[in-house]
């Protein structure tokens, strides 16, 4: 169960370094076990609080940060934003319990580029980490639907920069939401199958909010910073 079934060749010649942030000990242990057992992935540290996570990131500069959202001393979104801001080269992956659209998209907007379910099978998790490094972001039908809806009803437009999606990107989201495979979507839109993931990555980038002013705005919105005192 804890072995990595897929001995894939390393991407480039270097190992992926990973920092894992998760406050529930059994889940953390399970995930850590899975990651450690896999070739090509080096788990550098695990953390159970925001504080510890910051320290670990500063110390290890991981290629991939895997983080839960609900942490005892704060919200994972803040960590994601900081890491995105300070170490832009790091890829960030969110661990979600049920993959609910709201927290996933919030994390994406903070700068995450992938998510995995907490009960994922080892195969899926490792594949997700590799996929992320290779520039593939996972997207489910429900997330695609959620993004379309939010972009259409203007929920994203109250803050700048507004993530305006191109018609093609919207078409791809619709295809995913309606249950078509990447092949089907590529055929219908006259694209090659390989370009579909890059479109999805692009959509992620558009949703991402990583300007400093935006972060301050968000912080004020969350009452982390108080003005006028």
């Amino acid at each position, binding site marked *: 169960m804890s072995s990595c079934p897929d001995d894939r060749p390393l991407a480039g010649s270097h190992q992926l370094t990973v920092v894992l942030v998760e406050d529930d000990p059994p889940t953390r242990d399970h995930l850590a076990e899975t990651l450690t057992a896999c070739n090509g992935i080096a788990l550098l540290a695990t953390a159970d609080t925001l504080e510890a996570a910051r320290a670990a990131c500063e110390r290890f500069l991981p290629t991939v940060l895997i983080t839960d959202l609900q942490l005892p001393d704060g919200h994972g979104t803040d960590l994601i934003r900081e890491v995105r801001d300070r170490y832009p080269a790091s890829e960030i992956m969110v661990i979600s319990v*049920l993959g609910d659209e709201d927290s996933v998209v919030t994390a994406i907007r903070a700068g995450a580029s992938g998510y995995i*379910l907490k*009960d*994922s*099978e080892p*195969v*899926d998790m490792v594949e997700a980490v590799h996929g992320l490094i290779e520039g593939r972001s996972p997207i*489910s*039908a*429900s997330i695609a*639907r959620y993004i379309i809806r939010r972009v259409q009803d203007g929920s994203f437009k109250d803050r700048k920069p507004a993530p305006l999606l191109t018609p093609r990107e919207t078409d791809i989201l619709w295809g*995913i*939401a*309606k*249950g*078509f*495979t990447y092949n*089907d979507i590529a055929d219908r839109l006259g694209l090659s199958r390989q370009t579909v993931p890059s479109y999805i990555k692009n959509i992620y980038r558009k949703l991402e909010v990583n300007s400093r002013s935006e972060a301050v705005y968000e912080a004020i919105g969350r009452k982390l910073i108080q003005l006028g005192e």
Partner: protein
Amino acid sequence: MAVRLVEALEGRGWLRLLRRPVIGLFYLTVLAVGIGTPLFTLSPPEGGIELDRAMFRPLETLDRPADVPEAAVSLPHSFRVPGAGRFGGGLYRLEFDHSPDDPEQWSVLIPNYSGRILVRVNGALLYDSDWTHSGQIVTLIWPDIIAIPAPLLKAGTNSVEISAVMLFGRQSYLSVIHAGPDSLLRPVYQQHHFLLVILPQLLFRWQFAFSVMLLIVWAVRRSEWSYILYAGILFFNSISNLVVVLPEPLASPLVMQLTNLSFSWVTAMLVPFAFSFVNRRPPRASVLFAAFPVGVTSAFLLLPPGIVHVLNWYVAVPVAWGLSCWALGVLSYAAFRRGSNSAHMVLGATLLSLLMILHEAPILYGSVGKRLFINPFSIPIFMLLSVISTILMWRFAAALNAVDQFNANLRREIADAEAALRISLAREQAQERAIALEAERSRLTRDLHDGIAGQLVSMVALSRRTDAQVGDFGTAARRALVDLRLVIASMAEVGDDPGMMLANFRDHIQPQLRTLGIALDWQMHALPEGAGWSSSTALELFRLLQEATMNAARHSGADRVTIEIRPTDDGIRVVVADKGRGGAADRPGGYGLANMRRRARTIGARLDIVSGPDGTNIILDLPRPTASQ
């Protein structure tokens, strides 16, 4: 002012008691003014010579006096004339003394006269009234002042000769005459001129303009018959006074004579107007009244003057009076039986007019007396008409006010109704929401109870068994999680799109198959737009597909499961296929087939299981989703 007062009385309860005394007072005032009118006179000039005696001789023609001796008469004086176009006239000779050391300009003032006059001083013709206006209207009286050129005045006795000529009518009239300095006489002349000439002209113009105005009102509101009838009355009455404003040379004598007949038009319209004025329906036969003026006019144009004259006096005038009395009757009924204030106003004005005319009528028919300082045949009629005009305008404005008020009320009522409707709608929506929420809540409770609760119970039971393995426990927990995810997926808000719903299932089943090392061949064909399934239908469908797919993955031995979704003629077909060993149908119970059939029945779908050596096809035909599901 009185209109305002009386109108106001209608409204308030405590003032209603005062109504009778106020109306009584109103009529008393009218009577007093009417009877007392002759007492109002203009003061004579403060100087000059008053000539109240004259020597009189009838005239045979304009230039030839009758061969009879002169008779001394006192002024004012009237004489009987044959009338109806036949010549009738008289020559008045008066004398006054003039002292030569008076350097002032002298004039002769004739304050009132009727008909045509020619004035000679010391034998020189100074004035002919035909130079300025028509002398043919019997009812009109005129003032005139004639300046005497200085060379004409002699020291000592000077003579004034006035030839009075009447063509139409019975009776000539000449008032007291004044001779004296122009500066003393002219202000008095101006007063008479204003009252006898200017005022009627003003009223004429006002009346004419008002007639046009009413015509416009009627043109826009055709149902207001009183407006057009009254416009007609005003118009024809104005016509009858055309001579006041129109110099004779501008119109042919025929037109002038025709205007004399306008009384027939006016009286023909009186009765229908009186009816509509008091808000009653005029008799249908009112149209026949038109025969009256038409008859009068044709008689005038076709018959010889003598007969016309007789017909006029013995038929037309009585008919006119009859019609007027009928109209008065209608008004009186409305005033005294129905308490109509406006009818009271009109009756009062009528009474005043009649009283004034009564003063003058005897003079027209031969008696001798001083005439009123105003023209009794135009001023009171104008006054009466003005009262009616005022009332009509008042009504018009009041109607506009009523419309405004009605609008305001309507707007308020609509706003109220809207507010009430909004509240009831909000309540209804809240109720609907509550019902929907309740239904969803109970469904969710049932779904969780059917699925995860049972699995948790089974896990608890498992934990009590001594021989339980950790793996069994994990499997049970995983199954519970899978079902929980299905419940959540079934609740996804996908609008009306079955494709989106099935896409959720794909996201859900793909990781499970990958765990088992089975490839998923997902073939989604474009589905027609249509109503989606309800959450409960979606959940049953998901559970059915979950079972079918996992059966294929676990038991068929194939390493690939195909799920194909395509539209059919009457719905959607979902096929879960494998190329495994088949035999699914042969093992009832083992595959949970009974369970799948039950679920298919629940959502109204047809389930076919084709299982053979080439593999198993689970074919699910879903009816076209409708909103009611």
